[in-house]
């Protein structure tokens, strides 16, 4: 019970901090002081207090988009184990629901973008759905590989199963998996090298351009939802890449949060040292990640 409460509390409160840490890391690389770690929280509070501007072309779809996107993410966060504690909602086959919840949120993000009738947002929506077609098989290959290793179909078992011993036994395939998942993590969360969350007005944008017309509380919901998505996929990644469990519940939570912060720093470093890829290169990298994960699966299937 305590774990469930901590799970919900961490999942609800922690995600924006990741954005703060990424921002601070990038600032450090650029030689700036940067915004405070808690800046994303301040931004969210400010946005929730603001009024909204709606475009005349929009309908109820535009208003429903952010809500459903956030709701899908809130259900998805209940399905993944955090810090080696089982997820509050867990059943055999929940990994399929997990993947399809992202599909649902993508559907609504993109139709909300198309509702504005802006060609920029149309562009972003088209890219989002196209690239996700390429990222989706990667997620499935990875989860299948882990399912095969742990002989289970439930995310709680699959993601708490990896241990240092398994890393030693199936190191090659775990390494491939971690590589593929890191690429997917960056792609799905629209980070560099796939997308740049800091600029709005370039024609190569994906996620940011889809939310150009959202304002006020709706935009706050979108920002929060994006942070939550980063948190979810980050947690999946950390569970596999850093499978350390002490057995002590509180220490495990501490390790998990520390690991997530390190991941945020790592993303910040990637964003600081890399340039964004040309748009035509993105599918190649995504297909590359799919092939890496397919390799990982092949290695455990043999």
């Amino acid at each position, binding site marked *: 019970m305590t774990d469930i409460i901590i799970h919900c509390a961490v999942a609800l409160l922690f995600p924006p901090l990741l954005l703060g840490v990424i921002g601070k890391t990038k600032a450090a690389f650029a030689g700036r002081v940067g915004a405070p770690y808690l800046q994303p929280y301040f931004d969210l509070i400010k946005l929730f207090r*603001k*009024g*909204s*501007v*709606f*475009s*005349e*072309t*929009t*309908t109820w*779809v535009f*208003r429903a988009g952010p*809500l459903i996107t*956030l*709701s899908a993410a*809130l*259900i998805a966060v209940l399905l993944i184990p955090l810090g080696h504690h089982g997820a509050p*909602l867990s*059943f*055999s*086959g*929940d990994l*399929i*629901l997990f993947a*399809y919840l992202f*599909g*649902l949120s993508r*559907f609504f993000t*993109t*139709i909300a*973008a*198309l*509702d*504005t*009738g*802006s060609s920029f*947002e*149309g*562009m972003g*929506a*088209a890219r989002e*759905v*196209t690239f996700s*077609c390429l990222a*989706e*098989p990667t*997620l*499935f290959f990875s989860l*299948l590989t882990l*399912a*095969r290793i742990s*002989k*289970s*179909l439930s995310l709680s078992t699959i993601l708490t199963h990896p241990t240092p011993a398994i890393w030693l036994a199936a190191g090659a395939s775990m390494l491939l998996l971690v590589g593929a998942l890191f690429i997917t993590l960056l792609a799905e969360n629209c980070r560099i090298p796939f997308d740049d969350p800091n600029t709005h007005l370039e024609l190569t944008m994906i996620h940011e351009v889809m939310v150009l017309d959202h304002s*006020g*509380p709706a935009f706050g*919901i979108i920002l929060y939802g994006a942070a939550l998505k980063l948190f979810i996929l980050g947690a999946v990644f950390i569970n596999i890449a850093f499978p350390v469990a002490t057995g002590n519940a509180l220490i495990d939570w501490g390790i998990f949060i520390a690991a997530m912060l390190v991941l945020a720093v790592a993303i910040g470093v990637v964003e600081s040292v890399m340039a964004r890829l040309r748009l035509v290169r993105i*599918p190649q990298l995504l297909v590359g990640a*799919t092939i890496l994960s397919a390799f990982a699966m092949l290695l455990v*299937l043999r």
Partner: protein
Amino acid sequence: MFLLDPTLFLLVAASCIALSGIPGLLAHHSAWGQRVAAIIVIAASCLGETAVISLLSGIPASSYQIDWPLPFGPALFSVDHLSTIFLFPLFLVTGAVALYSVAYWPAREKASAGRLTFFLGLFAAAMIIVVMARNGVLFLMAWEVMALSAYFLLTTEQQSSDVQRVGTVYLLATHTGTMALFVMFSLLRATAGTFAFPATHALSLAVPVATTVIITALIGFGGKAGLMPLHFWLPGAHANAPSHVSAMMSGLMLKMGVYGILRTVSFFDQLPAWLGWLILLLGAWSAINGIALAAGQRDLKRLLACSSIENIGIVFIGIGLALVGLQQHASYLVVCGLAGAFIHIVNHGLFKSLLFLGSGVLIHGTGTREIDRMGGLARRMPVTSPLFLVGSLAICGLPPLNGFVGEFFLYVGAITDGIVAPLPLVALVAPVLALVGGLAVLTFVKLFGIVFLGAPRSADSAHGHEASAVMTGPMVLLAGGCLIAGMAPVLLVRLVTPVVGFYGGLSPQDMAQVMGHIPLVPLTCANVLLLVVVLAVGAAYLRRLRTSPRSQGSTWGCGYLEPTPRMQYTGTSFSEMAVSLLGGIVAPDRRRPTLDTPIPPADARFSYETTETVLDRILIPVFQVVGTAFSFLRKVQHGQLHIYVLYIFATLCVLMIWKN
């Protein structure tokens, strides 16, 4: 007990539906014939649905035998669980379509309504008989009535040259398939000695004969189902038929092909090992190619038709998994594969019919089928747009709608066997389904987003109007079905459990054991939780919205002050990137202008046409060559009927002499 016999109910329902169009034929240009037909069909559908439900609840069905004076053995009608699962969506959709057609194709405005109503009834009745026939010749007769009434239905607007062309392609395709079926049933007759269907798992044939039977069944039935590469007739036929006819063709007629294959396979006591893998491959191939084709389409109904190929592919993936499982005695795979396939058959009947009926409302309201000419219709069609959205979400297999349930079973079957059993290869089905699901989201975001959202792209769209309740009512019924079945997957599972047990040859204990592992209750919980969270977040957001200042403005154009609706992304531009990535499959025909003219540039045109690879690039060129090569034979085809009768007489004489 006689009065409660479901088979009799079904036969009565079939006869009523078959004859329902006759009053309309007698009274031209009058609405009552059509209304009477609708009432008869709806009443008969209710009767049929009652029979289906009583069959599912375990009331035994009897067989009826008619000793007709034809030399093919007695005509035998019967229903078993396999028939029932096809009859369930059949009656539902037929009833919905009958009501819809009264407003969509009103007899007062359209002269063809009488004929349309007549063939619609005949078409539905023929499908009922197809799943009830237990005699090869009776089956083929019903099959032909079905195929030909579909032809007359889809050529309703026969003045259009497009319609004539696709009608001819359809007729050729369906008769090529029927020819394969003739071979198949003749072979069965030659080995079994009778046209009556063999009992389940009773047929053991020599390998070459069995292979021929299976291959001909795959050609004949697979062509009707729209399995790649025999799908070429499908996009055109579905796009050019009246929308409610497309709904029935796609939602129901394609499933008759699936039924045929399932029925044929059930005859054999032993199946070749490659069959399951072949069907699995064909299914995966159809699913990926079908949805890739759909993504590139510009025609609303062509897009839906191509997505039918994808859905049939998913059904075949399920059947393939089950057959592989039967071969390897993997009961998990059998149950999940069959359950996934059957659930998807029912689901596809619901959501594809819903989407086709929705496309009818769109065509009715705007007068165009081109996605790129629509836009902004959500404002003008406040009832149709949420219904269409439900259909779109369901067809993408997204929770909490019914499409997810069927795909869930397929995933669970594939992955479970992939991880525990010695069949790791089937686990590859999961990434294939994921890719198909991703492309489906792309396709239906494009469809819904471009058609209903944004600003109107043409005057047709700007003046679009909502349809009457007679048209939206049936859609509400179908959308409600999608939602209920998605929220409570246990209903769908209850529906298909008997047929899975029957077809997979599993004992109730085995079934219960596997089904016990399927997390139906948690799925419902997750779905309910999702709805609760959406409502809670929505309520909080609305409260915030009410108390905070709100203003309206135009869409932000990055500083550009004179945006026009033509600047919006179109459907073609939306899918352009995906289509160029999938270049080999979709193969669009782009005609670019040359830009080497000096300043000022001359007028230039760009055209973008999606082509049909199998039909346009392979079949038509081949047929043209064959046509030229055999042109000398055209002499015997002169259009004089009495000479044609002479040909038949002469053939009969030759056959008699040869026989003696």
